[in-house]
Every structure is written in structure tokens, then in C-alpha cells.
């Protein structure tokens, strides 16, 4: 078959069209709000990508999106829908914060890995719970991850208003729910003089590469993807389906937890603060990471440019607010439209590729894997449903 034929290009073309369509609607919204769409988008692009300063801000904004997105890639590839990124980020941040408060005097080379690991562990724990509930009790992970978001936020509010609150806040009587300034040894080092880009960028890039290797270069990744493509086939091949589901969600949560940790230790105040909601801390990255991953075709490496695009939109949105007085919430609405358009465009993609039997070929781990697999989200994702789970339990 022709590598460069339309059948290969189309899958890349369709998500791009989805984004273009969303941007077009955004332009109409800008016009309706009395701002020039051209000027608006111009301001956004130049703010996000037009200067070194802008680029480094964009990179920083992209970190949590990339980390969560990479986690979403792992989960969705294994056919588990992780909506719990928000809670996992919060939990990761809390674990990391507690770790830095526990060992404030450790030197940076020891403390930094400890806090990042703690963050990943916090997220992994919160991810493993819905994984276990799905694997052993047949509870839909969509719902349990959403519920755990609420649980995580309340734990955060409790800890930051009570046990972890900055003693100074109590002394002053202001009681702002935030920690004290955390140990300087856990600050993510700045990469360049005078720019806001910090070492979190490297953490996120390494995580994306690690996730790619995990998914396509290890037998564990092969097992996860097999479970995603067909739980039944995977089981007959002797793959432990239940354990794979838990592992996928734990890895996914670990990435989100890492994102939470990076948010705390890369923040300008170097504290963890809550406004009572999860969005106040995460900036909706737990949800926007889903957008990043979908746009990247559920591929960790493609998630890198994808996260830069969406991070740039966030940076541009702030400039938009200043330049043409359009609230930055516009970008959240546009992200929503992009999700809708990308998943709706699956319809056209399916119609352009009539033989589904070919998908099973891509299970072969050697030559077929890698970049070619980029274009295929797991078959199971499309027919995700309770019946798979029931059959699964019936067989085991």
C-alpha cells in the first residue's frame, strides 16, 4: 500500500481540520464579541510564540498538559478512560508537598527526585483505586475517577486549611489556605537566565519519551495495548487483563501526579495554594490533557507539539484578554469544541478505512508498531462499554 496515499495522510488531516473548525467558530465568537478575529488571533500567536519570553512561558504552561496528556495516552491505549487527571494532579501535588516538608534540609540533588517521585506516587495511588474497582468490582472507571476528583479536592482543602497551612497565616490571622514557602532545595532549577522556563520542561519531555518506550518497546506496553485493542484476545494470549487495567490507570495517574508536583515546585510562589476548587490549582489541565492526547492521536511523542499548541493557546488567551478585552475563558470553550470535533471526526475516519480486520495486524509488536500505530486509537476505545467488562469477568 502506498505510504503517502490519502489513507495515510487522512488520519493526520482530520484532527487538523477539527482544530481549524474550532478556530473558525472562535473567530466568529470573537467577531460577535466585538473584537477583530484577525487581530485577536494575531495577538494570541505573537504572545505565545513571538518572543523568547513568550515561548518560554508557553513551554511552562505546556508542562502539565503534556504530562497529563501522556498519562491519558497510556490509559486510553489500554481502553481505560481516565477522567481523574484533576484529582490525580492534586493528590500528586499533596504528596510532593508533604515530602518536601518532611525533608526540607536534604540537598537539591536528593530532594528534587524525592518530591517528584512522591508526586508520581500520589497520582498513581489515586489512579490505582479506580483501576482496582474496575478490575475486580466492574465499576465504571469514568465515574469512579470523577468521584475521586471530588475526594482529592476536599482532602486538599482540608490539609491546606488545617495541618499543612503556613504557620504565618495563623499568626497573622489571615488564614489563607496555603502552605509556607517550601524548601528552596526542591525548587525546579531555572534553565536560562531571565526566562521562566524551568527544569519541569525536561521532566515532561523525559516522561513523554519514557511513555513512548513503555508503550511500544516493552512487553508491558505491548500487554497494555493488547488489552486496549481486544480484552478477549489478550486474555486468550495469557495476558492478565485485570492487572493490566490497574497498571494502566496507575501509570496514567503517576503522570498526572508528576504534573501536580511540577506545578507546585515550578510555581513562582513555591507554595501549594487552594481556592477551594481543583481548577484553581490545576487550571483544568486534568481535562485539557485529554484534549492534548486526543489531538496527538494518543501518541506520547506527538503529544509534545500538541501540548505546545494548547499551552500556547492558554498563553495567547491571557494576551487576548489584555489586548481586545475578550475573557480568556474563550480558550476553554474552544478546547471543548476541539474535543467534540476530534471525536466526532472519528466517524469520517472510519468511513475512509473500511476494513477493520487490518487493525488486528497492528498488534504485531515489531515492525508494525511505532509511528504507524500513531493513527489508530485502540479499537476497544470506540466500543468501550460495560459488556466487555462483564464478559471479562465471566471468563476469568
Amino acid at each position, binding site marked *: 500500500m502506498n505510504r503517502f496515499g490519502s489513507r495515510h495522510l487522512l488520519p493526520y488531516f482530520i484532527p487538523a481540520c477539527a482544530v481549524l473548525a474550532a478556530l473558525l467558530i472562535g473567530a466568529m*465568537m470573537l467577531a460577535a*464579541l466585538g473584537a477583530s478575529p484577525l487581530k485577536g488571533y494575531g495577538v494570541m500567536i505573537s504572545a505565545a510564540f513571538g518572543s523568547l519570553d513568550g515561548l518560554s512561558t508557553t513551554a511552562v504552561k505546556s508542562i502539565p498538559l503534556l504530562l497529563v496528556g501522556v498519562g491519558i495516552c497510556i490509559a486510553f491505549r489500554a481502553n481505560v*478512560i481516565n*477522567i481523574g487527571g484533576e484529582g490525580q494532579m492534586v493528590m500528586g501535588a499533596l504528596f510532593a508537598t508533604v515530602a518536601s516538608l518532611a525533608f526540607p534540609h536534604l540537598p537539591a540533588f536528593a530532594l528534587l527526585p524525592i518530591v517528584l517521585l512522591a508526586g508520581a506516587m500520589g497520582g498513581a495511588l489515586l489512579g490505582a483505586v479506580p483501576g482496582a*474497582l474496575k478490575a475486580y*468490582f*466492574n*465499576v*465504571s472507571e*469514568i*465515574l*469512579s475517577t*470523577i*468521584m*475521586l*476528583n*471530588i*475526594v482529592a*479536592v*476536599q*482532602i486538599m*482543602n*482540608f490539609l491546606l*486549611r*488545617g495541618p499543612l497551612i503556613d504557620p504565618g497565616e495563623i499568626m497573622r490571622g489571615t488564614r489563607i489556605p496555603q502552605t509556607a514557602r517550601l524548601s528552596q532545595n526542591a525548587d525546579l532549577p531555572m534553565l536560562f537566565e531571565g526566562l521562566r522556563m524551568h527544569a519541569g520542561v525536561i521532566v515532561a519531555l523525559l516522561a513523554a519519551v519514557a511513555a513512548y518506550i513503555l508503550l511500544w518497546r516493552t512487553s508491558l506496553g505491548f500487554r497494555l495495548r493488547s488489552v486496549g485493542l481486544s480484552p478477549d484476545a489478550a486474555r486468550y494470549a495469557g495476558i492478565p487483563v485485570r492487572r493490566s487495567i490497574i497498571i494502566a490507570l496507575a501509570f496514567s495517574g503517576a503522570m498526572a501526579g508528576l504534573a501536580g508536583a511540577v506545578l507546585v515546585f515550578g510555581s513562582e510562589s513555591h507554595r501549594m495554594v487552594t481556592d477551594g*476548587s481543583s*481548577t484553581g490549582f490545576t487550571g*483544568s489541565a486534568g*481535562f*485539557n490533557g*485529554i*484534549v492534548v492526547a*486526543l489531538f496527538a492521536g494518543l501518541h506520547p511523542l506527538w503529544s509534545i507539539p500538541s501540548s505546545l499548541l494548547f499551552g500556547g493557546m492558554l498563553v495567547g488567551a491571557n494576551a487576548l484578554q489584555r489586548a481586545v478585552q*475578550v*475573557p480568556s*475563558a*474563550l*480558550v*476553554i*470553550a*474552544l*478546547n*471543548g*469544541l476541539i*474535543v*467534540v*470535533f476530534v*471525536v*466526532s471526526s*472519528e*466517524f469520517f475516519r*472510519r468511513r475512509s478505512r473500511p476494513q477493520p480486520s487490518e487493525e488486528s495486524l497492528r498488534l504485531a509488536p515489531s515492525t508494525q508498531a511505532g509511528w504507524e500505530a500513531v493513527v489508530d486509537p485502540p479499537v476497544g*476505545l*470506540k*466500543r*468501550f*462499554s*460495560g*459488556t466487555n467488562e*462483564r464478559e471479562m469477568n465471566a471468563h476469568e
Partner: protein
Amino acid sequence: MPMSDYFTATILIATVASGIRLATPFLLASLGESLGQRSGVLNLGVDGVMLLGAFGAYYAVLQTGSLMLGVIVGLLIGTFMGLLYAFISVTLQAEQGVSGIGIYLFGLGMSDLLFQKLVGTPRPIVPFPPLKIPLLSDIPVIGEMLFEHSLIVYMAFALVPIATLVITRTTYGMNVRAAGENPEAADSLGVSVSAVRYSTSIIGNTLAGLAGAALAIELGIFQQNLTNAMGFIAVALVYFGAWRPIGVMAGSLVFGIVASIVLQCKTVGIIPRSASDLAAMAPAVITILALVVVASRFHQPAALAKPFVREG
């Protein structure tokens, strides 16, 4: 003062009454969601639709002062979003676990955008007046608890028996269940699965819009992310209630009354503010436990979240 003195009849009555009020948006939204799920459509965008409905209602009331108009605007926004969601999930067969998140983000951003652009600083509106039901509201204790609410509260609870009747006793209800359990069989008997799912998505989202309107007008205010994940809880309540209107109502009441107890304890000062955060997560934990029980005892509609593709 001994703790027991706080739990006088007045506080108990106030707690239950406000619990019922707080349960109303949950009830409306999850009744709509359960109808959709019964027909095989999972809608995770409820929270976004609620936010849009809430803003629409708030803005309409702010501009005209007419509560009725506010409710209608909330309803219509829901209807429109229902049509849109049906097109996405039924016609375009998008993955429903994800497209709903798109709808949520759209509603979250759009309602905030419009609020900032059109209103700016929060201005309160006049909430619903309580409507005392003659005779019934004169019953001591119970009257005050149950029969001094706003019209929309009565409407929401009246919908429970209506929804039960429609789902279990009418042809339409049977078609809905067939579309959710075995769309192929329904199709072979001449039931249009698409039409049924369009209708449930529209009704369900209309109720979500109404839930948003009820919330905004009850609180008399709109702000960014007003619902704070209430719509997601409404989706979970459908599982909590095992897809039955009466179960959904029980779940909504649990959430409403727990929320009201937490609020009440906070204002009376029985528990410190920080511990009330822990209490506030009780409903979520209860729901997760309920999900475990429900998943082992009941089965979800077999075709839930599965697009129906006609063979041939």
C-alpha cells in the same frame, strides 16, 4: 452549651428543608441523564449544560426580572445542547466517554466568557418565592419540611413518578429501554433507534438546562464554575440509583441532605471549617461504595455508550 441543644426541631426542619432544595438540581439533571442512559446514550457533559443553563437563566432574570423567562431560557439552552449532543453521539457516533468532556469544557468556558463579557461583577437576582401548599403546609414539622418550597422543587419531585410511569408503562418507554438494551432487536421491530436516542438526549439535556436554571435562581447568583462538578455527580447518581427514577431520587436526597448537614454544622460551628472539608467528601465516598454494590447487583443498559450502526 451542650451539643444536643443544637439539634432542636427547628434546626432539623431547616436542615431537611434545605437538603430538599439542594437535592433539586441533582434530581432534575440525573433524571434526564438516566433517561438518556436507558436508551444507550451516556452524556458526561451534564455539568457544562447545567452551567450554560444556569447562566442563561441568570442573565434573563437579571435583564427582565422575570423568573419564568429565566426558567424557559434555561430549558431552551438545554434543548439546543441536547440536539447538538444527539448529533455528535448518535449521528456522528463519537466516543461518548470523551465527547461529553468536550461539551463540559465548552459549557465551562462559554458560560464564564459570557458572564464576564455581559455581566462582569456578580449582581444578585431575586430567588424563587416559596410556595406554601394550602392545608399540607399547615401540618406541623412535615409541612414546614416538605411543603414550603418553590414551584421548581415540586416539579422536580413530581417528575419522579411521571418518569417511572413513562419508562415502565408506555410504548415510548419500552422503545427507550429496547434502544438501550438491544438496539438491533428494536431496529428489526421497526423502532428507529436514532429517533429514540435523539429524543432522550434532547429531553435529558433539557432537564440538565432546567437544573442549571434551578440552581442559579435558587442561589440568586451566577459565578464562574457555579456548579462545581454537580453535573458529574448527577451522572454518578444515575448509577447510584441503578437507572431507576426512584433510586435516582434517593441518591439526590442523600447528596442534598448531606450537603445541607455540612452547611448547617459549619454555620452553627459544631465542626471546624477544615473538618467540614472532610465531611464534604462523604457523598463522593458513599457514591463510590454504592457504585461497587450497584455494579454487582444491577446491570447497566447493555448498549450504553455504544453507537448503533445498522448493518447492511
